């Protein structure tokens, strides 16, 4: 390829907020109910009804704005975004346009050990639309309006992102913040955290941006990276072949792993935004902002620093443990029961990170680590105990006793095992005594084997060394 290109990426995230009721009426926001059961005249857009703003929605967005270092405007205003679609019963979506809730923030990400700031352009509030249902129906489409009016935050980044890795890191970080704040459950598959990506490329070193395309329908972190990578390659190819990028909306096709253009008819909208006359502008005083600031929980960044200082664990561990609030809380619960932070961190990072729900209690995990530390079981046996704990939900000690996994630590038992092994391999004993000292490992392994892994390794080493050095 003749020219080297640089990608320029901006992300728009739509996050469903975890308020109990919808943004403009009292209907429930819960997921998975009977179609159209969570509706009222207001979210159905019936004639004459009026929206009333749910204050919680504003507070959730204010939390997000503060956590991402945005400036919250003293006055924000709703606007109508007008378009016709069956899942939009009023024919317009109530959103924000000229005066969003917050602007000019940032999120810090880390890719390949390097830190980078991604600026946030704005955070605004809007209502979600319903869902059209086509599957399994002939000659008709149905509309489910349960989702209509569920509160959304749209979080728009500046085009500061330069690779799909950075994009994924930004999304993970943002999602983590929202989950920490308990304002969004961050579920990509269920659509409560949705992402659109604006992607363009330019020759490296050029200041002006290229023409961008907007990617939609990317509902997992993996797809975000794949879709962006595909789109960058596609655009490079177009330019290399002397073509021109068309500004358009493209959909990620999960099956074929390609982006395809949306029909232009669907994307060519004039939304005719204008201020929503049914809602008064929202005034946000500095007192209100301070009140919200006080309710902010410890955020991942701060938690990570505290873990390093307070528990003396490596920054890498701290950063992994604070990826999720659930894991971080679990870690701290364990440490408070049994103060061995590094051992606890090792077990969590090794075996618990990929679990949806943490499958054991802090008491169980620390109970087991305590058994190792006291020499009751070996590290190797602990693996078995751990697996068994997940399966049976029993405590480590109970498993150890039931399965006879107690470590063999008394000299007599270990010596008899050593004797057995030495008798079985007289040639090796002879060779060792002639100076082939690396056979020591062989004997350790054999004794461990016959002990069923239960021999206390420290004791074993000590006794084995003595025994081998002492000619019979």
């Amino acid at each position, binding site marked *: 390829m003749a020219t080297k290109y640089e990608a320029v990426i901006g992300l728009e995230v739509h996050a469903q907020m975890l308020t109990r009721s919808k943004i403009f009426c009292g209907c429930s926001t819960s997921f998975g109910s009977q179609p159209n059961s969570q509706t009222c*005249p207001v979210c159905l857009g*019936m004639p*004459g009804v*009026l929206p*009333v*703003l749910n204050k919680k929605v504003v507070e959730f967005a204010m939390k997000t704005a503060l956590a991402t270092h945005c400036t919250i405007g003293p006055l924000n205003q709703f606007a*109508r975004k007008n378009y016709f679609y069956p899942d939009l019963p009023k024919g317009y979506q109530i959103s924000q346009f000229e005066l969003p809730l917050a602007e000019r923030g940032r999120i810090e990400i880390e890719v390949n050990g390097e830190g980078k700031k991604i600026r946030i352009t704005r955070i605004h509030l809007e209502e979600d639309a319903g869902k059209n249902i086509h599957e399994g129906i002939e000659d008709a489409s149905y509309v489910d309006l349960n989702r209509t009016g569920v509160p959304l935050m749209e979080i728009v980044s500046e085009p500061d992102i330069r690779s799909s890795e950075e994009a994924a890191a930004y999304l993970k970080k943002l999602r983590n913040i929202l989950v920490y704040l308990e304002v969004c459950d961050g579920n990509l598959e269920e659509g409560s955290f949705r992402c659109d990506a604006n992607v363009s490329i330019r020759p490296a070193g050029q200041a002006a941006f290229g023409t961008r395309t907007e990617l939609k329908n990317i509902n997992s972190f993996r797809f975000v990276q794949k879709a962006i990578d595909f789109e960058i390659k596609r655009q490079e190819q177009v330019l290399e072949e002397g073509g021109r990028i068309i500004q358009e909306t493209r959909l990620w096709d999960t099956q074929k792993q390609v982006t395809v253009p949306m029909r232009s008819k669907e994307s060519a909208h004039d939304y005719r*935004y204008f201020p929503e006359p*049914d809602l008064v502008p929202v005034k946000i005083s500095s007192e209100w902002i301070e009140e919200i600031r006080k309710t902010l929980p410890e955020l991942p960044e701060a938690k990570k620093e505290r873990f390093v200082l307070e528990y003396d664990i490596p920054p890498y561990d701290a950063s992994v443990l604070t990826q999720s609030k659930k894991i971080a809380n679990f870690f701290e619960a364990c440490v408070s029961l049994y103060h061995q932070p590094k051992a606890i961190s090792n077990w969590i990072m090794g075996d618990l990170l990929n679990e949806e729900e943490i499958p054991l209690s802090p008491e169980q995990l620390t109970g087991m680590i305590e058994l190792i530390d006291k020499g009751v079981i070996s590290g190797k046996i602990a693996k078995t105990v751990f697996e068994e704990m997940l399966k049976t939900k029993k405590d480590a000690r109970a498993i150890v006793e039931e399965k006879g996994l107690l470590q063999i630590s008394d000299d007599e038992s270990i010596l008899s095992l050593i004797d057995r092994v030495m008798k079985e391999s007289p040639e090796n004993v002879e060779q060792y005594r002639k100076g082939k000292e690396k056979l020591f490992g062989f004997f350790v392994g054999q004794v461990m084997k016959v002990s069923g892994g239960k021999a206390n390794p420290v004791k074993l080493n000590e006794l084995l060394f003595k025994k081998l050095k002492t000619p019979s």
Partner: protein
Amino acid sequence: MTMKLYQLTIHQAHQLLRKKEITSLELVKSVFERIDQTEPKISAYNELRKEAALKESEQFDRKIKEGKFKSPLTGIPLGLKDNICSAGVRTTCSSKILGDFIPPYDATVVKKLKESETIFVGKTNMDEFAMGSSTENSAFKKTRNPWDLERIPGGSSGGSAAAVAADECLGALGSDTGGSIRQPAALCGVVGLKPTYGLVSRFGLVAFASSLDQIGPLAKDVTDAALLLNEISGHDPMDSTSSLRPSEDYLKALRPEVKGLKIGIPKEYLIKGIDPEIEKSVMSAVNLWKGLGAEVVEISLPHTPYAVATYYILATAEASSNLERYDGVRFGYRSSEVKNLNDLYEKSRAEGFGPEVKRRIMLGTYALSSGYYDAYYKKAQQVRTLFIKDFTDAFKKVDAIVTPTTPTPAFRLGEKVQDPLQMYLSDIFTISANLAGIPAISVPCGLSSTGLPIGIQIMGRYFGESTLLNLAYAYEQASGFHNQKPNL
């Protein structure tokens, strides 16, 4: 000639109910007898609810017998404009697209009036979606002016105004976006009040232009208007634009003295094309107030010439969006000739809306379009702030501003149908109050030489309804024009 019960005002009827000289049932029966006689000529109602009304009156009579009155409106039969939602009763906006729409909820004003134990006679005819000044834009029927059946009753609350003027109810509610209460009140010789924006809840009023719409009373006299306003005003948590001010008792404003009040006459309102008889009537009304001790000064509202243009940009822009929900998907009319989604939208709306509504949707859509927004909608919003300033400045000098309500008395049916611009100009004096959000009232101010009613408009400060009612009441008591009745 003995007085018929249907001729009573609300306050007269209330006194007779209190004295047990009449019953609510007799009153409601009398009104329906009147309707039987005059409705074939007037066509004020889209829907009547005779049986329900009679039943309700009997229920209230049982309480009245024990001397229990929930309000001065207990047992009083009223008309309701057909764009105000009433649970279980068709609410059509006089549009084919809502021809079968039965809302499952009450508008807040309806809820309040039900709690006040009033009785709804029926839903009154109007211009489709309140767009018009003659009620000729109704998809269902043409309402006639009780004073001259060849003439229009005004609009868009023409059904409510005609029903009150023809004694087909004791009072009625209308809605006013650019004059839709005051203009028909003037043309039918009744009192019509557009309250301050935010004084009366809009919840359940089918929206035309949300930032301008306001529900208000049409009544036989000023006292009845105050009684109705007492019942319907007040904060509503269901309407974010509703005012938080504590309620007032508007009956206290009904005083004959006006000494010390300052009335302003805007020089910009005495325009060319204004009917000389109207100008004369208004000037004699002003002299009457002067005689009662009010001070009269000339004032200036310099941006008045831009009112109609500003209004037709803002009102149509909001309307184009408000009417998007009539898409044939979930409620309202759906075309039967539908092959795909675009058909569903295009045909349902093409068949469901009348020509004036379509015209305004197109105007409003254009004004909001990208590339035109700044030149039209945004500019109009800026001009709107100048109107507000005009009035704020004026009300530093005067307590009320007086103008004619309309430039001419009622015109003939069909006279302006082909000329929308002429039709729009009939709202020229009323539009400014909506743009500024201030209250305004129209009261009868005599008859033209051809025997048609003339109305005078009084505009006041934000939430200055009491001042308006004071001036209107003093004028009414001194002039006696509210006692003039059409011959039907």
